[in-house]
């Protein structure tokens, strides 16, 4: 139970940090579901190739969003080797913009190199996934992220808390406290997470993001997040499909739950109606019987004549 709650924390943290990036969510789920295949796909050469493509895409995409990051991007773009991702992560030039950028980079890095999809479609998918992050998101994303990350160690953190916690705990300690205070109960953690999101301004939370929160988490995915050695076997296209299936499954589950509730309510209503009817019938029957008894019984209170003489 505790470990599953932990996993829930991990899940929420990962999903919140990766606002709307389907590749990230799926990367965690794919890591969870097929760790063996991830390790088997591990290879140096294809990783670099697709990674360069990915870097290009990210450069193009993020240049639309946040210009302050451009210089940083130029620098990293000139060194298209994966270990420079670490550099990028550590520098954190813009506390407001970088968390989202960093997490996107990292997640996309994790998902991109292992993508078996062609670079063109991967690029297209990158474009699709990246733009949806709205500008007001980064500041709040930072606070949420740090809140989540501090919640995770509070839950009894493992290795996953380390790297992401180190990166995100820089800012918003006050916000973090608020988060940890509000989310003492692990059962309510997800609800609180949602509430926190809404509290910060529901406008920045697109609908699919809330789906993302429910998406499969993965302690294994978090490990890859930290270690940066695990490769995600599936590309963004398959990730979106998996998310869609997840959404469908959730819908079905919700429908089942509603049906269950409605069926029980209907049964109770039927029973109530039946019992009321039976009650009325029985009462009427009892009344009739009472009347019949009263008619038949002689009235012993009245005086009666009887013989008292011995003859």
């Amino acid at each position, binding site marked *: 139970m505790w470990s599953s709650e932990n996993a829930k924390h991990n899940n929420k943290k990962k999903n919140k940090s990766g606002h709307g990036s389907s590749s990230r969510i799926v990367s965690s789920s794919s890591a969870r579901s097929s760790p063996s295949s991830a390790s088997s796909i591990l290879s140096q050469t294809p990783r670099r190739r697709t990674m360069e493509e990915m870097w290009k895409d990210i450069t193009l995409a993020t240049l639309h969003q946040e210009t302050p990051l451009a210089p940083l991007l130029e620098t990293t773009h000139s060194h298209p080797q994966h270990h420079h991702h670490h550099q990028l992560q550590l520098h954190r030039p813009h506390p407001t913009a970088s968390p989202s950028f960093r997490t996107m980079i990292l997640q996309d890095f994790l998902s991109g190199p292992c993508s078996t999809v062609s670079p063109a479609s991967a690029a297209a998918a990158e474009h699709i996934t990246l733009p949806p992050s709205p500008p007001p998101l980064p500041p709040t994303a930072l606070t949420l992220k740090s809140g989540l990350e501090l919640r995770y160690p509070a839950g009894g953190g493992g290795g996953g808390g380390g790297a992401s916690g180190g990166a995100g705990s820089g800012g918003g300690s006050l916000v973090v406290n608020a988060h940890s205070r509000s989310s003492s109960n692990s059962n309510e953690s997800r609800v609180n997470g949602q509430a926190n999101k809404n509290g910060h301004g529901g406008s920045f939370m697109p609908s699919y993001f809330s789906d993302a929160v429910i998406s*499969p988490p993965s302690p294994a995915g978090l490990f890859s997040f930290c270690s940066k050695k695990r490769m995600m076997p599936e590309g963004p296209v398959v990730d979106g499909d998996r998310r869609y299936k997840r959404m469908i499954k959730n819908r079905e589950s919700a429908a*089942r739950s509603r049906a269950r509730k409605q069926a029980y309510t209907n049964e109770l209503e039927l029973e109530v109606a039946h019992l009321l009817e039976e009650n009325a019938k029985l009462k009427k029957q009892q009344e009739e019987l009472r009347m019949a008894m009263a008619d038949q019984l002689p009235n012993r209170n009245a005086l009666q004549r009887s013989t008292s003489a011995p003859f």
Partner: protein
Amino acid sequence: MSRDPLVVGRVVGDVLDPFIRSASLRVLYNNREVTNGSELKPSAVVHEPRVEIPGRDMRTLYTLAMVDPDAPSPSNPTKREHLHWLVTDIPETTNSSFGNEIVPYESPRPTAGIHRFVFVLFRQEVRQTIYAPGWRQNFNTRDFAALYNLGPPVAAMYFNCQRENGCGGRRYHAVSGWT
């Protein structure tokens, strides 16, 4: 009637075809009657219930089947239906202990999700020999009724059951994800 709990709860659909109830059925666990569609804990349904069939004619015989259409989980019912109990030759006005237990009662132990456990009652035309299936899973009530010429069901009811300390539905498993 679309308000029928059996229809709303998708029992009619997943397990049975629409039918007209022509008999009554009472299921009692620990001497407590189960309301259709209610929820019971696995600890409450460990032992077989007493299934009463009120009526007038002791010559009429009934067959009772208890199935779980949500095995192993409602979102992934690959083993639909799991047969938990099969009793035949139950005389009307009596209860299941007077019948012939073909498949012994298996306690419901749902691991994932909230399962429905359905009791189906068929009227037998004659005292007939019904053979137990080779295995409990992937039982098909419709096919079973067709095989033994039992006709449409005459009564049915169901209850919900989840893990003893269940939180109500989907949980995250480290290996299999959300189920």
